[in-house]
């Protein structure tokens, strides 16, 4: 990766990154702390969308249940805090462990199937998590759970202030993007992308594609659970609502409007999504209608999302990431 990319979309991303790093100061100087909240939420969603893009965009695995892992992450914080464990590393370890285990079991079953089956099974499993949380009255059931204190990371950046939390989010997002970039361009990533296009060919090259895809699915779930940990800390209130299947649908929408199979696509998609949501919901209470119509039109007429649009500016095909 060159430090300053030569193509237009690459330059836009560098500028965007600088703005993101300076955001808390910019918003403070214009006395608009609300925008920092909005941006924090957007970047958390961006982590989740990046994790989904790893399996959906690069791996061709359309999961309609990814919000379940956000829920697992958020409830790792919520339930641990409920028993007075506030250690942030414990929360993260719990989220990664539980999501990895759940993804391993459900992925092992779902990945035996293809296409329509895979979509519906991932959706069904996430709905299972949803209904399970809904029936656990100990942890608030549908009333949700309040998180009174954010995760503690002694000695490192404190999460308690909104600026501190923002840099945690931005930091984790950058690590995620870098990790996904390296993963996709590694030998492992080539196998994943290869089995999206032609699984039989990858198998005849001697790769056990099932294992590769399962590993990829588990990694994606673990990244997504980190977004859940952050979201739990950010909202201070968690409920089964945050993982209903409409949430998973939104994540797919975000990945698509950003442009699939690109590293930065999900980030752009999330920011566009959150801004749209904010603007449209101010115009009319019926903004979901506009959203729905946009989705239908996007599929029928628009391809490649925003990233694809930016790429068309470039004179030559630049490095895809």
């Amino acid at each position, binding site marked *: 990766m060159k430090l300053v990319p030569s193509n237009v979309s690459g330059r836009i991303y560098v500028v965007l990154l600088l703005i993101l790093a300076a955001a808390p100061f910019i918003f403070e100087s214009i006395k608009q702390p609300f925008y920092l909240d909005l941006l924090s939420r957007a970047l958390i969603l961006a982590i989740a969308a990046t994790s989904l893009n790893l399996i959906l965009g690069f791996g061709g695995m359309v999961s309609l249940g990814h919000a379940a892992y956000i829920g697992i992450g958020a409830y790792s914080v919520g339930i641990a805090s409920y028993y007075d464990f506030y250690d942030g590393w414990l929360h993260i370890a719990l989220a990664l462990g539980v999501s990895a285990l759940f993804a391993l079991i459900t992925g092992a079953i779902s990945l*035996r199937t293809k296409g329509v089956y895979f979509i519906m099974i991932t959706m*069904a499993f996430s709905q299972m998590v949803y209904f399970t949380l809904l029936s656990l009255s*100990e942890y608030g059931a549908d009333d949700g759970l309040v998180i009174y204190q954010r995760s503690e990371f002694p000695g490192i950046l404190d999460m308690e202030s909104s600026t501190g939390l923002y840099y945690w989010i931005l930091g984790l997002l950058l690590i995620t993007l870098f990790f996904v970039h390296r993963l996709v361009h590694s030998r492992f990533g080539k196998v994943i992308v290869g089995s999206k296009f032609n699984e039989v060919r990858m198998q005849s090259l001697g790769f056990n594609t099932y294992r590769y895809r399962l590993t990829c699915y588990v990694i994606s779930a673990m990244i997504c659970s980190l977004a859940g940990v952050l979201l739990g800390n950010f909202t201070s209130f968690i409920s089964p609502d945050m993982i209903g299947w409409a949430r998973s649908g939104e994540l797919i929408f975000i990945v698509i409007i950003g442009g699939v199979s690109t590293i930065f696509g999900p980030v752009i998609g999330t920011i566009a999504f959150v801004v749209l949501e904010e603007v449209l919901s101010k115009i009319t209470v*019926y903004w979901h209608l506009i959203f729905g119509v946009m989705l*239908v039109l996007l599929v*029928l007429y628009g391809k490649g999302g925003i990233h694809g649009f930016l790429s068309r500016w470039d004179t030559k095909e630049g490095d895809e990431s």
Partner: protein
Amino acid sequence: MDWNLLITQLMNGLQLGLLLFLLASGLTLIFGIMDFINLSHGSFYMVGAYFCGTLVVTTGSFVIGIVGGLIGVFIVGALIELVIARKLYRSDHLDHVLVTFGLILIFDTLVHMIWGSAGMAIPLPPVLDGQITMGSIVLPTYRVLIIAAGLLVAALLYVLVSKTRLGMLIRAGASNRTMVEALGVNINRLFLIVFALGATLAGLAGMLIAPITEASIGMGNDIIITAFVVVIVGGIGSVKGAFYASLLLGLMDTLSRSYLDDLMKLVMSGDAAETAAPAISAMLIYILMAAILAFKPQGLFPPAGAK
């Protein structure tokens, strides 16, 4: 053992199973024949309930409500097929997910705009509002009617699919679409009929349940997931599979919710059973789905020759 309670619960399970069948039979055919994932199938369920409710309230006749509602949902289903779904049969499944997710948002918001955010209660005619007494067992008339209607539709669908020319084409389409097309069948018309018929069945399910639960926005979005599980368990494209899987899941879900805690108290402490039972019964149908898929990845009754 309280026999009355058991019979009531069995009836509830049967009722849920038949409603699931009405939803799942359309879903499974649309999946099987057009290879189209329709997440918004639950919207037809909701639209059916609202159409029927409006007609019942304005005309005062339950029969007009049902018949008019069915015609209305059939038209809506046909329009969606003609304007949107038809363009996407050959594209990626991801496109289906996105478009039909968008349609859910559109339908939910339109219902909100037209009928408001509060639910709509649908009054039952006095004839149906009573109870049927058989010996010591008392059953609400309307629930018996739902079960009878569900069984009747299942029988009609069986005749349609296995005895008529249209049914023959439907079965052939589920097994091998390309071959049916190659034999000169007007595949577009077949797709239109299947899609609109599926929508109508879902609408019927919504109309039947609405007098009990009332019509509300997003009412189809939860039950549709269970209908997906039914389709997966039964085998995509198989109406027979959808029928058995619906009854199995409907009965299992209802019975586990009322009896699982008692069963678990036999092997563990009362408190633990009280806490764990609701969670386990919430997961039960998904565990069953996982177990069946582990042994039969194509479901219980995959259509002959389907890939």
